[in-house]
């Protein structure tokens, strides 16, 4: 794929051409991420997909992936994508959800480290979540136009 050192956004190849790496997960039902997936945007939502993050301790700071709900039925995602950390309580941060003219609905509702984040089947096409390795955790941020469309657990 032309990733740079440790998959970060350096070097030649795809990134060198100024293009983001996009991977359509299609009908895949499981995906175990590795160091080399850094910098990738995954299109999800066609089928129930279980994504496993690498252990944060094994990744270089700056490792990042993004998920965009693309496969939709009637405007909402066809199926849920669940992104789970290899360890417990590795995810920090929050996603902002909520519709037009609505209150900000944060996920998780209360601050605290979590194990997983979902692009739920109730989320809308185009909703997204980004995950970046920072320190000993993953920083998670995302936006959904549906209340609690990006639930943490």
């Amino acid at each position: 794929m032309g990733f740079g050192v440790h998959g970060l956004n350096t070097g030649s190849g795809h990134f060198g051409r100024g293009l983001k790496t996009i991977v359509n997960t299609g009908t895949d039902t499981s995906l175990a991420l590795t160091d080399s997936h850094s910098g990738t945007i995954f299109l999800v939502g066609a089928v129930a997909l279980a994504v496993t993050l690498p252990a944060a301790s094994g990744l270089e700071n700056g490792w990042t992936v993004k998920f965009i709900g693309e496969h939709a039925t009637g405007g909402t995602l066809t199926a849920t994508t669940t992104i789970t950390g290899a360890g417990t309580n590795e995810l920090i941060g929050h996603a902002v959800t909520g519709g037009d003219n609505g209150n900000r609905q944060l996920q998780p509702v209360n601050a605290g480290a979590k194990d997983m984040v979902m692009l739920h089947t109730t989320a809308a096409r185009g909703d997204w979540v980004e995950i970046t390795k920072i320190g000993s955790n993953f920083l998670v941020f995302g936006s959904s136009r549906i209340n609690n469309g990006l639930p943490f657990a």
Partner: protein
Amino acid sequence: MGSFAFRSAALAGKKKITDLGTTTALTLASGHTNTVFLCGGATQAVTLPNANTLPVGWNVKFVVNDETAVVTITGTADQCIGHVVTGGDNQNRQLQPTSAGLFDVIIFTAGGLKGDWVEITCITSGLFHVHGDCRVIDKITCTSP
């Protein structure tokens, strides 16, 4: 500006920054990928390429750095998904478009502020993902005329 300049920035892990200044028209092409355009210095009409003609991963970003005038970004019909979040401090979030669906015109309208931004990425054949943020209610609009 040749494509080498764009590649040089990408190779260094950087974005290419282009200040549109008082430019009034810009037709984007494949070679503009990885560019951040500073806009708003004049009424500006930007034309997106047909997403069917672009490599997947193509991306551009627009940031208001001059509050003088309206910037209109127009694409091929119904090639955009996603949303822009607008609204000020301590207010409800105001989404654009207001309802989920495809759109093709993004406008930085009068009253938007410096730092408001939109990012556009070709995520698959014929489709852009759009996200952005604006600190004034609905001063970035996403529509399908």
